[in-house]
């Protein structure tokens, strides 16, 4: 561990979080909703503290190990969420636990909330959308530029490079990639803002929704979410935005590097689009057949929106899917667990892992018949190294085990079993919503503080793909 490097990175994160807060502070003083001090004070102190730490520990050519990266990532998310929770507390609308829950739900792009949008001032709405947007870019940079080189997360399945400590010479390369990714992310956001305004949304709503769409977070400015606008055009724009943001940003990166064909021949991308389309058609049929929707067109509209929204873990609402038929509900739960592509802002297990899991199962059945067969695991035309097979199978087990343990932890708070499971499922898959009452701000705000903290931890677990967080809890990490 290199404390200097860690302090340096944390200083940068805290300063950036504080700087971002100046925007809602300015917005608040413009609109006069009285929250300017609630943003101004934490912003200035975070910038001052972070910058001081950053410049004090600054030193050229530092060596960074894998362990440093894990520690920086986890503590970075926790500290930025802590800083981000201050405006909620200082504006006097909620206590520190609720504020931290909301802030973490923002920075992890989960989108769970303890307060309905109507209870929040415009500047707070803007801030919580911004937390998602910032969290989204953090995730993209982390998993596309950094994780494959250190050796964690689903994106490592794409690179044949051995997991080695990040050596100093890799840093410029990571910085270059990060820069391009940031441009792509900003361009995508700008495109969604413009498209939403063309579709008839006001500028404040358009900016907020664009930020939470691209981050696949799902915070809206109205209690009825996107349904409040009741517009075909807006829904289509949001669907396109969500689907594009659930795609591996490495695909866009490759496009900018000039290899368009390679980018869109990506197996995971094709499977991801296939899953959303298949789910949409199944649900359209089911919703129409079971008389839940009056016309095929209406059924299609809601099915498309919900399948895109829950696959990417955004969870904007256009319809109350609690009243839908069991087939559609089951499909949506499955989509939540699958999630979007590796290296995107979406949550869930990730399509690439599901692809490899099903291929692995087929190979197991094959090897039952031909015990001596050699069955390399392929992604496209590239062979996935055997050690990664253990890693992603292991990931699946950790996912199932954390889900089980989490359900137990929440169930110990006298929460009904279905809701206990649903809330853990929602937080681990970064959707923030699930069947039943889960997703309603009243559900989350009624939970005891310890349950809220548990769910907060689960959002972090889900966002950072489990092992990145869990490794910090093992003795091996802290030894030598």
């Amino acid at each position, binding site marked *: 561990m290199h404390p200097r490097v860690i302090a340096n990175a944390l200083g940068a994160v805290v300063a950036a979080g504080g700087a971002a807060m100046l925007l809602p502070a300015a917005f608040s003083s413009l609109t006069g909703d009285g929250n300017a001090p609630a943003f101004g004070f934490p912003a200035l102190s975070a910038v001052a503290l972070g910058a001081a730490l950053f410049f004090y520990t600054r030193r050229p050519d530092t060596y960074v190990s*894998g*362990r440093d990266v*894990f520690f920086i990532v986890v503590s970075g998310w926790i500290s930025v969420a802590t800083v981000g929770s201050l405006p909620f507390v200082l504006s006097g609308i909620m206590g520190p636990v609720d504020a931290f829950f909301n802030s973490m739900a923002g920075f992890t792009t989960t989108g769970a909330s303890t307060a309905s949008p109507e209870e929040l001032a415009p500047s707070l709405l803007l801030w919580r959308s911004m937390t998602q947007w910032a969290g989204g870019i953090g995730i993209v940079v982390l998993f596309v530029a950094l994780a494959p080189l250190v*050796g*964690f997360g689903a994106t490592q399945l794409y690179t044949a490079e*051995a*997991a080695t*400590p990040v050596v100093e010479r890799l840093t410029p390369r990571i910085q270059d990639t990060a820069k391009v990714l940031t441009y792509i992310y900003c361009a995508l956001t700008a495109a969604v803002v413009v498209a939403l305004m063309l579709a008839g949304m006001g500028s404040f709503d358009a900016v907020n929704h664009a930020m939470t769409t691209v981050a696949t977070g799902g915070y809206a400015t109205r209690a009825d979410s996107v349904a409040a606008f009741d517009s075909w055009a807006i829904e289509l724009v949001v669907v396109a935005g969500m689907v594009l943001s659930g795609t591996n940003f490495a695909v866009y990166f490759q496009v900018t590097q000039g290899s368009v064909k390679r980018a869109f021949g990506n197996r995971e991308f094709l499977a991801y689009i296939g899953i959303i389309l298949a789910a949409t058609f199944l649900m359209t049929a089911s919703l129409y057949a079971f008389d839940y929707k009056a016309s095929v067109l209406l059924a299609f509209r809601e099915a498309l929106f919900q399948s895109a929204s829950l696959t990417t873990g955004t969870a904007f609402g256009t319809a109350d899917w609690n009243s839908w*038929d*069991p*087939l559609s*509900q*089951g*499909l949506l739960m*499955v989509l939540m*667990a699958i999630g979007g592509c590796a290296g995107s802002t979406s949550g869930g297990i990730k399509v690439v892992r599901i692809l490899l*899991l*099903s291929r*692995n*199962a087929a*190979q*197991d*059945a*094959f*090897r*039952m*018949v031909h*015990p*001596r067969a050699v069955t390399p695991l392929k992604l496209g035309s590239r062979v996935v190294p*055997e*050690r990664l*097979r*253990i*890693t992603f*199978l*292991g*990931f*699946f*087990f*950790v996912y199932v*085990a954390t889900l*089980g343990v989490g*359900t*137990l932890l929440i*169930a*110990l708070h*006298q*929460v*009904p*079993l*279905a809701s*206990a499971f649903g809330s853990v499922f929602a937080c681990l898959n970064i959707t923030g919503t699930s*069947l039943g009452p889960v997703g309603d701000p009243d559900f989350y705000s009624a939970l005891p503080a310890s349950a809220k903290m548990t769910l907060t931890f689960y959002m972090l677990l889900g966002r950072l793909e489990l*092992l*990145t967080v*869990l*490794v910090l809890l*093992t003795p*091996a*990490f802290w030894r030598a």
Partner: protein
Amino acid sequence: MNFRLVLRVGSTVVLALGVSLLIPLLLSLLYRDGSWRSFLFPAAVMTITGAAALRLTGSSGRASGYVSTQDVYLSVTLAWTLATLLGGVPFLIEGTFPNILDSSFETMSGFTTTGATLLSNIEAQTPSILFWRSMTQWLGGIGIVVLFVAVAPVLGVGAARLLGAEVSGLTQPRLTPRIADTAKALVVIYLLISLAETLCLLAAGMSPYDAVVHTFTTVATGGFSPKTASIGFYDSLAIEVVIVFFMTVSGISFSLYYLLYTRRRLGVMLDRELLAYLGILVVAMVFVWGVLVFEGTYGSSWGAALRDSVFSVSSIITTTGYVTTDFDRWDTGAKTILILLMFVGGCAGSTAGGIKVIRMLIVVQTILQNIFRMVHPRAVTPLKIGGRVVPEGVRMSVLGLFAAWIGIFSLATFLVALQDNLTLISSATAVAATLNVVGPGLGQVGATESYEIVDPLGRIVLTVCMLLGRLEIFTVLALLSPAFWRR
């Protein structure tokens, strides 16, 4: 494909069923309960058909030639399917169930030692019918033990690969005597345990009929009971202690008993899986007891809470499914523990279901190694169980099985949940209880309920789940792969 072997196995199953049906037939005549017609006809037909088919497919003196893994999978799946279809015939003749779907659900639940039932008023059935129902579990239990302890290690498949046998893809005919010898010893052990339990239950004050019937379903970790209230009917501490002991004993690998039997040294019982199994059992009991006491479910009667938590935890982890209390009314924390235990199950090579403790050990070790390798990317981390290194191929198959288990669980839950009047928890636990061959689930299929509420589609799905869970998924799934049928 050695179809003659497959046919011979099928014929043996039919013959064995026919002969077994003679016992409830005699019992029916003895009790004069009027069900003898339901047994006489199938018993006669099956005995004759089975014997004839066995004769036609070859003399028993000759070795049956080259046996491949495919033949074994096909035979095993066929054996359980045949037993299920034919074993349900007495229920159909008796009119216990109106159609073959329901009778198959009940007999599959029997032969897979699950214990899920469609009967809501069990006492309304005649003693001989209930005897046969429990006997299917006993027969299924011995089938599983022989399959996973005697046959599978020789072929190098299933969890048996972990039990010390070298991995061999194909077998030679000369291995057959070894299988037969092991199988014989296992049958003796199984009978001895059954006998011991019957005597203990008699001593604890059960009537002879009840003692035998409960022995059948305890040793097989099945859980069928001739009483609707299950073991709760007797409300006797002595009986509960006996049953808890024998459930736990039956959840231990029979290969350990076999080693004990052949080597006569107690040291063989110091097995890593066994220790882990007992550890999980004790920790879960204490945890559930703690939750019950802490949440005040039992008021100030801590003793009653302990009694019920010990019984329920051992009943669930051994996947027996006996009930002494309606654990559906427990605190959600305690219920969650029970659901998690269903998936753990007992030891490999026992009559218990679930994913099995040894696989859990391997999966947990793999996770810890994965995390370790995040910190030390170049570390070599061989898989070790009790000091012995396990081949990487075994680790892969265990991880693969685990993933398939969860996949099937999700898919089946999805299918069962299509029924409008079932809650999500009911359908999920119904699948958990059948895939892990436990028996009762929670909610609408809970401890005091039957599976009557499940619609026909759900019943089919659950019946398939029982078979998949009992034969550890890939044995059945391999039949669906095109590679299986290709030459």
